[in-house]
């Protein structure tokens, strides 16, 4: 089992990745990676350090969050099934450039996870083979988990034809 500090040391030597931030709390190990080298970092973690399972991809909207510097954070949860090591990799995004490289070529699990993040937050994963909405109807155009989307929606839930007694 390679210690986390050693993994971070290797990752920081990658080109453009020297300002990776690392923090840990109990057995929770977290990386904050610049957006431009997220794919390289994920690829190194999978190939060199055997993080062979993608547990989850999710996102956070930091709008109105106290002291937040970025609008969105995209979070990858990785697991090394040999050693049981877990790592949380996070990257930050700001409007209008909400694009990230897709992790589908590394883990097939990224397929639906990236579609969900796209559906709920509007973050576009370049290179995804089939980036469609997964939960909301296809005609939906907003991103409901963004903090500036009203809880009750913008009337989409009432935008259906009415069937009366006479016509049914």
């Amino acid at each position, binding site marked *: 089992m390679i210690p986390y500090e050693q993994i971070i040391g290797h990752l920081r030597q990658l080109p453009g990745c020297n300002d990776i931030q690392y923090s840990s709390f109990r057995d929770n190990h977290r990386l904050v990676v610049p957006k431009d080298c997220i794919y390289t970092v994920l690829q190194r973690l999978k190939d060199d350090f055997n993080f062979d399972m993608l547990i989850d991809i999710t996102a956070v909207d930091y709008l109105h969050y106290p002291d*937040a510097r*970025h609008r969105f954070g995209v979070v990858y949860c990785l697991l090394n099934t040999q050693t049981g090591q877990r790592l949380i990799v996070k990257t930050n995004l700001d409007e209008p450039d909400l694009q990230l490289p897709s992790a589908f070529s590394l883990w097939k699990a990224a397929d639906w996870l990236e579609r969900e993040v796209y559906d709920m937050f509007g973050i576009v994963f370049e290179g995804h083979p089939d980036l469609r909405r997964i939960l*909301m109807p296809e005609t939906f155009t907003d991103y409901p988990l963004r903090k500036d989307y009203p809880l009750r929606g913008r009337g989409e839930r009432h935008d259906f034809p009415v069937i009366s007694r006479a016509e049914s």
Partner: protein
Amino acid sequence: MALGLPENVFLANLDKLANWVRANSLWPMPFATACCGIELMAVGASRYDIARFGAEVMRFSPRQCDLMIVAGRIVMKMLPVLQRIWLQMPEPKWCISMGACASSGGVFDTYAVVQGIDRFIPVDLYIPGCPPRPEQLIQAVLDLQEKIRKTGTLAGREFQQRTQPNIPQLLPAPPSDRIVAPGDYTTATQRWPGDDRSSSSCSRRPLPQVN
């Protein structure tokens, strides 16, 4: 009577006879999407036993049903399915909206949940409760039987006479929708050049086609 009818022969209005038959042989279509569906199953099982009222033949094909029991919350993606199934049921047909969610959206006042199915399909009976007691559903079936006995003709003309219901209209969103938490508004979602999202998101869809 002067006719001198033999024993066990009755004279009745044909409409009345048809209504008597319909009321005592309801075939429910269980549209169960949530915990109300569990209560619905309990009503179908031996302890409450809806068979005592002639409505035990739950069919999962809308072609064979005349009573739709909507039990549970209906979301945006399920509503076209619900409407399609309702249109596929043959006349005469009735609808029971079971529970708070089907009747009004219940506690799920969110962007994806329809705030009452009566906005989009006709409803004959509402059952309050979250979820309702099985006895309430049995009472609803009894009330519906009463309604069927009073209305309904063999030709089904009363269905033509029922016109567009006066459904609840969409209320303007109250101010509580606005986020008032302190924070930085400079990074809020803004329109940028090339962004063609409209504020009203969905275009109105046509009625589902029934085959």
